[in-house]
């Protein structure tokens, strides 16, 4: 994913916007385009779901408001207590913070297999995740 020091890039200036108000007019005509939205690739039940999300998105929060990856991402408590939202990170793990105390407590040995609790992760980079099938808890 493209990341530069500036968070936004604008389209090229149109030729007819000149003079002291040029910058303001350009902003109005060409609103900034966000280029650093993380791309989430989510595997579940043999299917792949993919979408961009806002920077610092929590996928359980998204599922909780019925946005992607709803209805595919299962979660239950939203507080790191049940591990229903556990996912295996296939790619992008290097951009995640170290597991916190809840993940260590809930996941134990599964951490070494690449599992993380989606409810404890705020995404800032592209990520590819897989959630095991037949999760007993259904989405709240």
């Amino acid at each position, binding site marked *: 994913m493209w990341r530069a020091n500036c968070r936004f890039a604008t389209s090229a200036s149109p030729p007819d916007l000149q003079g002291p108000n040029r910058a303001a007019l350009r902003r109005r005509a060409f609103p900034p385009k966000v280029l650093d939205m993380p791309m989430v690739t989510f595997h579940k039940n043999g299917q792949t779901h993919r979408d961009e999300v806002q920077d610092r998105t929590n996928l359980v929060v998204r599922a909780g408001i019925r946005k992607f990856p709803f209805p595919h991402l299962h979660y239950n408590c939203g*507080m790191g207590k049940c591990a229903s939202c556990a996912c295996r990170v296939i790619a992008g793990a290097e951009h995640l913070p170290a597991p916190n105390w809840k993940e260590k407590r809930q996941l134990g040995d599964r951490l070494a297999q690449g599992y993380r609790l989606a409810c404890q992760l705020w995404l800032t980079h592209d990520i590819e995740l897989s959630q095991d099938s037949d999760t007993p808890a259904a989405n709240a």
Partner: protein
Amino acid sequence: MTELMNQNDFRSALEKAIQGKSANQSPFSIAWASGKLTRAHLARWAENHYHYVGPFADYLAAIYMRMPDHYTEAKDFLLANMYEEEIGGDRHTDLLIRFAEACGTTAERVRDPDNMSPTTRGLQSWCYAVAMREDPIVAVAGLVVGLESQVPSIYRKQTPTLRETYGFTDEEVEFFDLHIVSDEIHGERGYQIVLEHATTPELQQRCLKICEIGAQMRLLYTTALYNDYVAGELPLRDLGLAA
């Protein structure tokens, strides 16, 4: 006459209405974040906070009952918030009591309504009144957007201090950890309901107004906590605030 805002502009206006009176600005919050409270102060906070957030599912239930039956998703969102507050994982108030006990008070004292301040009683009463009397969309704006959605930003600032400065363990401060995720979900659901269903300029303006009032009520509550329990020992000048 005020025009109907699109959802993006309306959301920005809601956020602005809350931000102006954010409880982060109160002396109690500033003292907390700068590590200047004692465990006794935090115990008084817990004894009050229980009576404000403890009935949150009750507030939501009153709104749920009056939400039009064809607003199915809005009703589902409220029900999900109630479930998660009470039985989705650990009951949120149980975790608050765990923190209170770590501060040196008891579950019995926390549950005793005689231990809340008059201002806390006023905040609780305001929440009940909004839930039972306001248009349900306006009530969601006031209680969920205006109050609950503020919580993640407050606790993100306060929780590291509880561990690093006050010396609490991870388990003792779990109440705060969970609310960073849980209230982000709840607050977002509130925004979805309000953005979707405040479909007239008049209703949008009422939502903005009650968000502003809700943020003022929370600021009032936290300011009173400072005045009632902290001011005698920690004057404003020690917090870098004008007396």
